[in-house]
């Protein structure tokens, strides 16, 4: 079933260093369209660094990172990567606090991706309004549409940021700890949201510490350790793999 899926992101031989420290060491990683791929591992395993490379925040020392098999992601700026369809929700909820929920989504929902001048002078059209309204429903913030970002709860900010990335219609959706700091209820709702986002033209990569959440959402799990891939497979088998247990789940 998963074999038939097209590869979205392919990482080969990736090395990322900070000074003498190898945050990522010869990493091999793939994420396919139509799946939710969870990346787990102990602190310092290089999970967030991997997302940083995919979004142009950290430069790759060596290796290949491609989208759709052809597009070289290591040479592109954050802006180019975002416009090529890589959307990221940050670990710390990052929304524009002075703007309302609607304005946050409206800014994220680009009208003219190729021209900033046209973007500035563009007027809202029906299609964008519909996209934003649908996204508001999806993230459950319809009632807060006119509330300022600063007034939202932590969980609501996380959802808003997911919504902001969603309206960009990304091919690759990167979620860095989407349920950190959320209540159990909020975590359940977020799990349902992430499951509902799966689609044939979207690859979802989630970095998360909450194992129950990962089990609910992930089709495939990549366990990273010291900048390398330790294990790939289902969450159930990860839970019983002795290497994983040794480094991470800790007996």
């Amino acid at each position: 079933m998963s074999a038939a899926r097209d590869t979205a992101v392919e990482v080969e031989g990736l090395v990322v260093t900070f000074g003498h420290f190898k945050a990522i060491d010869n990493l091999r990683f793939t994420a396919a369209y139509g799946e939710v791929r969870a990346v787990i591992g102990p602190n310092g395993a290089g999970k967030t660094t991997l997302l940083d490379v995919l979004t142009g925040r950290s430069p790759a020392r060596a290796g290949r990172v491609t989208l759709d098999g052809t597009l070289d992601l290591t040479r592109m700026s954050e802006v180019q990567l975002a416009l090529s369809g890589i959307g990221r929700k940050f670990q710390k909820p990052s929304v524009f606090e002075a703007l309302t929920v609607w304005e946050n989504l409206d800014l994220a929902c680009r009208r003219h991706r190729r021209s900033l001048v046209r973007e500035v002078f563009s007027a809202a059209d029906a299609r964008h309004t519909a996209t934003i309204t649908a996204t508001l429903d999806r993230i459950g913030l319809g009632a807060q549409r006119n509330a300022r970002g600063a007034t939202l709860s932590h969980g609501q900010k996380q959802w808003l940021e997911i919504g902001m990335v969603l309206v960009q219609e990304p091919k690759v959706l990167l979620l860095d700890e989407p349920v950190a700091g959320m209540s159990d209820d909020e975590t359940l709702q977020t799990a349902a949201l992430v499951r509902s986002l799966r689609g044939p033209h979207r690859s979802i990569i989630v970095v998360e510490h909450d194992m129950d959440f990962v089990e609910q959402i992930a089709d495939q799990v990549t366990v990273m350790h010291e900048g390398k891939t330790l294990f790939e497979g289902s969450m159930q088998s990860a839970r019983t793999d002795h290497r994983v247990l040794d480094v991470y789940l800790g007996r």
Partner: protein
Amino acid sequence: MMAASERGAAATAGLIALLLILVPLAGLHLAGPVGLSVYAVNVVGQVMCFALLAMSVDLMWGGAGILSLGHGLFFALGGYIAAMHLLRTAFATTHVLPDFLQFMGQSAFPGYWHVFDSLPFTLAAILLIPGLIAFVFGFVSFRSRVNGVYFAIITQALTYTAMLLMFRNDTGFGGNNGMTGFHGIAGLPIGGANAAVLLTVLSTIAVLLTLIGGRVLLASRFGRMLAAIRDDEPRLRFLGYDTLWLKLAAWCLSAMVAAVAGALYVPQVGIINPSLLDPSVSLEIAVWVAVGGRGGFYGAIIGAVLVNMVKFWLSAAAPSLWPFVLSLLVLLVVLALPNGLTDLRNRSRSWMTDLGRGFREAGRGRPERGAG
């Protein structure tokens, strides 16, 4: 919150518009209970120029969260360009070369001065030269992602460099003494009542137009992009916005507004010299904005007006006290009102609502706890 800001801006605009009635009365020699004296008109005009300058800083600081401590440079540039035009027109009537050129042993204006004979060219230059300098400086800084306090420091360095350059007599703009000896403006003798009224009215109109235009800009999609830069610039970049160009656009616009303020200011004081390029002048502009309150422009106007009124009064009454009063103001703002006088309004409102809630709860006998 939005409504409070709207009301504040409307009230400020209303008060400034009142000046457009009071000031021309002075020109009709109705000074006294209804009008203003020529001295007062001149003070109002200068203060309006400072208000305009404060708004230019607020566009960057309140709008995009980027603090400039070097806007004195753009103010002075506008002033120097206006002064060049005024000296050329003075020469056309008096045929006397300005002192500083005679002092340098020159018998005529250097060739490039002749272009400033033209008023339209001068007006264009007032916008374009500071705009171009802002563009080059902003492009280099923003592209290297120089942010926050580091950006503020290099803007100080920039205006300091310009001051050292302008202090040299060889630079050709009057060195230490600057440029003075203006004759007239639009056919009115400089220093006279009519010129003072004209310049004050122009400055007041410039403040009003900038207040209205600036608020329209902040409410536009571009203004929301600036707010997004202020709140979380990396987030905006990862949404696919190249923030370099947004910041650069705001920065150049801000420099141009400051230059217009300088160009209106110099004929009112009758002199321009490098002291305007002193970093302390630029720091003071930031103090005006901090005192009045960042964002929305009306706080900047109120701050510039209040601080400068105190300064005008003190410079006559007790000039040596000014640095202490200024420092005290800064301390007060930093400690008690982090967002300036606009905080006073928000704070008094929250006291009022607290008081109201207290009364209601007392009426019910016990405090009520909401469910959520």
